[in-house]
């Protein structure tokens, strides 16, 4: 592999230096980082002395790949951590040393770590009475689950930015310009956050914010912990430091002198995880603390035309923000050559999808590898993803999407199992509708069709039963048994007698029950989940989710009339528990079109030849998430006390976000960007957002001859 001069310069340094690599994406910094890692290993440094510190697990992929390519080198394991991961690991190790300071009610007992789901569940448990009995959040129009998640988000921001949770409301209120009466919602947020924190401390529960807070407050200053860390890790590689949080930067800055060597990589014009607390300014304090900074400037990825397009974006945004645009001319670049638009803008959304799919097919026919194409939208809705996937399937084009799995209540396999659970535990009073039972039968018995499943359920299932609601197959009239077929009847009978023999919930847990149902019946030959890996995965996720729920919740809310299983099933139905997990993208097929939300693609940090940007009229390209109970700008470290947040700020932020995002995407695009939009979005609204206006401006300017 030919090295760039910057990469060679880095590798010329001895492994006793602390060097920062700074530059835009696409200039070879991460590659330099992997080469540096290799150099460390080749020089005989044990892998377990090397710490790779990243803001998000997906960003470790290039390093993992390079280690995988050269297995012989990595004897032992390089530690790959995020701040959260590090906090949790240290809490596990040093809990007894600091537990008495943390304020938990039972310091002598180990803490329980909450997952996102269980934290959401407990937040609901604490806040629901406040909403229902004290009219909290009355003046808001927002789904309850979002209230809970935004309060958690505020707690996390406090931990990541490093301010006391008591300051959440005062900060938000001080910046508020809206209706004064509306300000009380921040008091409600504050009271809810404090109530949740008390609940956690009282029950030895550590949510994500508390894990980080305790780590920063008590573990990081603890000499034993510090010396453990210092002795364990001698060499540091930090990548995408601009995507990390101020508290992570504080830790790294203080820790830096203790390492023998360090490479700190920072992308300029990035900071995409801003909404999650990323802070590019504090990242630079770590860069500044290094011995030396190497600038990476030469773009190794994008064509000249794409770079021309980037300049066009910079100028258009500057002009929208009323600033004098910097005339960065790039001889020979023509932004319009980097863009492909449909000849006519389609009026309707499906036509946009059809256009994109047809163009993808054309590209592939002309030799572009499928893996060199990504389809991006600001928000990959189910409808968009589904329609696109169907269309690509139709053309036989391989594709994959990196997305959270479907929520459990939308997963047919999970539905089937939970339906049988509600049948087996009639005392819950949650007997399913007959049609659901028929659907479950259709899934469970193989082969079985909807008509026969309905017919069978009509004769054997009593949805109003007080006790066990299933009748034996032999009670079905003979003529109907003929129609259903005896083979299916026999399997039904197998399933029924298994369910009928179910022990009461007191004697077994829901996860145990489902585990057995799956293992002893549904995965056996003649049943629907036999040899079905995808469904097996879903079932495993379901069972794991129930286990975690039971371990944490069962312990806390254990009283006589409380059934963990019933509670779980109801929470799934309400959407509180979705058990959505990110499908591991390592499993993604190598050469296939990638469908993803734009930010997800950025966080994958890989370049491709062609990008499709869909729905370019949508405001979701730049709108901040999680309104109205939290505010990433006001809660950031750079926010000055006493300032108010106005619409002007909002627009400035929107412009900056959009510029950051579009430059980030273009930095990861080699040749062309296809721009898809329809006059009306999927709901029939006409969207003419900022991105569209910027692109118009770029096109106009280019036509006028400014490159």
């Amino acid at each position, binding site marked *: 592999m030919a090295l760039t001069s910057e990469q060679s310069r880095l590798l010329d340094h001895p492994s006793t230096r602390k060097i920062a690599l700074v530059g835009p994406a696409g200039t070879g910094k991460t590659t330099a980082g992997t080469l540096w890692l290799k150099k460390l290993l080749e020089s005989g440094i044990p892998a377990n002395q090397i710490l790779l510190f990243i803001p998000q697990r997906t960003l470790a992929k290039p390093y993992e790949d390079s280690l995988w390519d050269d297995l012989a080198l990595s004897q032992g394991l390089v530690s790959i951590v995020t701040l959260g991961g590090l906090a949790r690991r240290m809490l596990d190790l040093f809990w007894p040393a600091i537990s008495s300071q943390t304020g938990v009610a039972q310091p002598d007992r180990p803490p329980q770590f909450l997952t996102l789901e269980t934290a959401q569940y407990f937040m609901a448990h604490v806040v629901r009475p406040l909403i229902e009995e004290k009219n909290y959040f009355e003046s808001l129009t927002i789904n309850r689950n979002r209230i809970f998640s935004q309060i958690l988000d505020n707690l996390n921001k406090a931990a990541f930015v490093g301010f006391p949770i008591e300051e959440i409301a005062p900060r938000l209120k001080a910046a508020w310009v809206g209706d004064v009466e509306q300000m009380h919602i921040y008091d409600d947020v504050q009271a809810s956050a404090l109530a949740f924190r008390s609940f956690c401390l009282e029950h030895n529960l550590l949510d994500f914010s508390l894990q980080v807070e305790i780590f920063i407050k008590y573990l990081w200053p603890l000499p034993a912990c510090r010396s453990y860390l210092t002795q364990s890790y001698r060499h540091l590689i930090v990548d995408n430091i601009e995507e990390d949080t101020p508290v992570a930067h504080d830790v790294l800055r203080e820790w830096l002198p203790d390492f023998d060597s360090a490479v700190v990589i920072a992308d300029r014009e990035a900071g995409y995880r801003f909404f999650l607390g990323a802070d590019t300014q504090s990242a630079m304090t770590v860069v500044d603390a290094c011995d030396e900074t190497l600038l990476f400037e030469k773009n190794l990825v994008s064509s000249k035309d794409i770079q021309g397009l980037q300049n066009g974006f910079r100028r258009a945004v500057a002009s929208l923000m009323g600033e004098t645009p910097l005339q960065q001319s790039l001889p020979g670049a023509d932004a319009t050559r980097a863009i492909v638009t449909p000849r006519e803008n389609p009026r309707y959304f499906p036509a946009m999808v059809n256009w994109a799919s047809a163009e993808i097919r054309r590209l592939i026919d002309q030799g572009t590898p499928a893996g060199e194409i990504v389809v991006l939208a600001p928000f990959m809705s189910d409808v968009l993803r589904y329609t696109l996937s169907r269309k690509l399937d139709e053309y036989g084009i391989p594709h994959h999407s990196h997305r959270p799995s479907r929520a459990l209540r939308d997963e047919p396999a999970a539905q089937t199992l939970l339906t049988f659970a509600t049948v087996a535990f009639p005392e819950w009073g949650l007997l399913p509708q007959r*049609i659901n039972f028929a659907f479950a039968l259709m899934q469970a018995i193989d082969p079985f069709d909807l008509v026969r499943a309905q017919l069978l359920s009509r004769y054997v299932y009593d949805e109003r039963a007080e006790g066990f609601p299933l009748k034996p197959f032999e009670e079905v009239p003979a003529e109907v048994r003929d129609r259903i077929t005896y083979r299916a009847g026999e399997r039904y009978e197998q399933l029924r007698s298994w369910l009928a023999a179910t022990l009461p919930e007191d004697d077994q847990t829901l996860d145990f029950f489902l585990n057995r149902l799956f293992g002893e019946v549904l995965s056996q030959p003649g049943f629907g989940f036999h040899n079905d890996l995808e469904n097996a995965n879903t079932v495993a996720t379901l069972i794991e989710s129930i286990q975690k729920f039971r371990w944490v919740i069962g312990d806390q809310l254990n009283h006589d009339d409380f059934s963990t299983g019933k509670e779980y099933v109801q929470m799934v139905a309400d959407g509180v528990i979705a058990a959505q997990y990110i499908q591991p993208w390592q499993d993604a097929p190598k050469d296939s079109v990638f469908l993803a939300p734009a930010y997800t693609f950025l966080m994958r940090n890989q370049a491709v030849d062609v990008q499709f940007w869909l729905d370019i009229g949508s405001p979701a390209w730049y709108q901040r998430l999680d309104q109205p109970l939290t505010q990433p700008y006001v809660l950031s470290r750079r926010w000055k006390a006493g300032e108010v947040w106005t619409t002007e700020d909002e627009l400035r932020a929107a412009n900056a976000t959009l510029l950051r995002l579009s430059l980030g995407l273009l930095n990861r695009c080699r040749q062309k960007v296809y721009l898809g939009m329809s006059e009306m979005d999927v709901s029939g609204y006409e969207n003419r957002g900022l991105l569209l206006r910027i692109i118009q401006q770029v096109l106009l300017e280019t036509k006028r001859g400014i490159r």
Partner: protein
Amino acid sequence: MSAAAMKLRPGQQQILRYQNGKMGVSAVPGSGKTWTLSYLAADLIKSGAIQPDQEVLIVTLVNAAVDNFSARISGQLQAAGLLPGLGYRVRTLHGLANDIVRMRPDLAGLSNGFQIVDEVEATRIIRSVSETWLQSNPEFFEPYLDFDESQREKIYTQSQNLPALVESIAVAFIRLAKDRQLTPPDLHRLLAQVQIPLPLVELGAGLYREYQDALNYRGSVDFDDLIRLALRCLESDPSLVATLRQRWPYILEDEAQDSSLLQQKILSLLTGETGNWVRVGDPNQAIYETFTTASPQYLLDFIQRPDVLTRSLPESGRSTWSIISLANSLINWTRDKHPNLDARKALNPPLIQPTPPDDPQPNPPDCPDCIQLVEQLLSPDQEVKFVVDSIEAWLPEHPDQTLAILSPRNTRGFKFADECQRRGIPVVDSLLRSTSSTRLSTSAIFHILNALCDPRESGKLSTAYRVWRRKEREDEQRWPFYQAIAKRIKSCDRVEDFLWPQTANDWLTEIKAEGADAAVLDELETFRDVIQRGQNSVFLPIDQLILTLSQDLFLEPAELALAHKLSVLLRQLSNAHPDWRLPEFTEEMKQIANNQRRFLGFSNEDTAFNPDLYPGQVVVATMHKAKGLEWDAVYLTAVNNYNFPSGEEYDQYQSEKWFARDHLNLEAETLAQLNALTEGRAMDWYQEGAATLEARQEFIRERLRLFYVGITRARRWLTVTANSGRASARNVPARAFLELINAWEKHK
């Protein structure tokens, strides 16, 4: 053609000279205000008055007008060699409010993914809230009722009586409270401060709170919330106002006579004292006022302001001189001679003037014989027969002309449509319901879902087959083939042997043995594939199921777009009702298909209705829906004193329930109590019965304008009839109608 090249009327010329500042234009029906306003917008853009990041904002009343404006402006820009679609934005007030709120949802207390519930979901919530309330407060209305004890059961349980009353009170109360920017906690506070009981407000406030809770639970707002919240955002953040003033330096408002208080406030804020605001409207066509704060008075007051340039568009080339005379005589009689003094301000000059002789849109040649004012009172059935007889005779002689039957209410309209259909007269009733193509597409999805819900029923499967092949209906020769197949499917006893055959039981093999030909077998196999795909997809989340089905059902872009929109709607419903399963979603589709819920689709019919596309057919619509449209011939029906009262002793009023004490209009009384409460003088202000009387006056005035709107829809032929209503009603022809007959006699 450019404005310069085209011959403009003096009124239009004056308006197109506008450059900046405030201007108020009163226009008459058919004077080309949409044309003039879109020209003005295009002129402003072409003249360079707009910077690249600015837009001329056009605000209009209904979605149909949005498309109309957009098409006209973009056409003019293209003709001038400019990029269409840039430099302007056409919105209804709801669309504008949506744009504003989405800029700063936090200021409105909304999450950025907030949803908007459509009218039907809102109605469903209100209905359920009202039912619950009535069940837990059965005694509440006792003091307001006057009835024979034997009728108690009927009053309390029949849906058209008390349940409907509570629902209508809830709708009116919630709308007014939102118009006044009051939230349920605000009302709670205000109620705690007053000393006297205001039971009707307490009722309304309770319903309002429950309703809002239900919306919050869904993370949704309704259309009225959007407007209220947009104003809240603007009032609370001056920098938002400044940003929007910069973005929209010109605001052109159409149909300003139906402007509400909030609309006026929002547009005032967006233009500021020195901004550019053109308001065009016809105060005589204000017909959306009942129980809202909309009022033509806002436009009239605006026009009177010293800083406002006043213009008018009095010339209209739409109708014959005879029809213009009738419309003008209605204005004159109302102003000068209406027996009810309060009603005299309902209609105002300018009178309609015909266009000048060399006008590009000359009035049709006069035809006094084309006017038929039927003085004789008919029974409802006689009226239907009379009108349809007349049309049956007229249509063959005028196959290229357009015609409409207009009635005051939807239900009445259907009677005419049914009779036309019965006699084989082509009828277009899409203005009475969701557009027919939306209904057909939705109905197709419904029938497939219905067959999935109950897969054992061969009848449902047969219907699903028919809708799947619905397009073949147009091919008269082939259709019998498909009908025969549908019949065959219906006759299949064991559906499973057709859809999922076993070796020994295969229906297709059976019918093959019976001699069915290959084409039939092929067709059945193809259909079986479709249904098998559907049945295998029943586990998918509802949105994905709809999309899967739509791949087999639809080819047209608009139909596919509709399927996408339906899938998003059902997804929202599924989030709001986690317990819903296929049967509930199927029921929902049925309601859309049957038009119990109006669902704005994507076909052209939904967004703009063009009467000229239906020559030789009968368009049936309500008079309200006909606003903005015109036909060669118009039948105005049911012009009796029930639909168009004039304040006579014997008049009856739709909002006064027969079981209410002293003819109280309880909706109006509730709103009056709310007004009294908010104005802080409950003790002095609220007098029982006064609001009922005032509501009568308002209704009389609005109905005079509705009559005027009806008359001015006609270009050449106009027939007006009245009916006696139900036997017990003993209605008579409306007073205004009788006066029109007198005036017409004199005119002739």
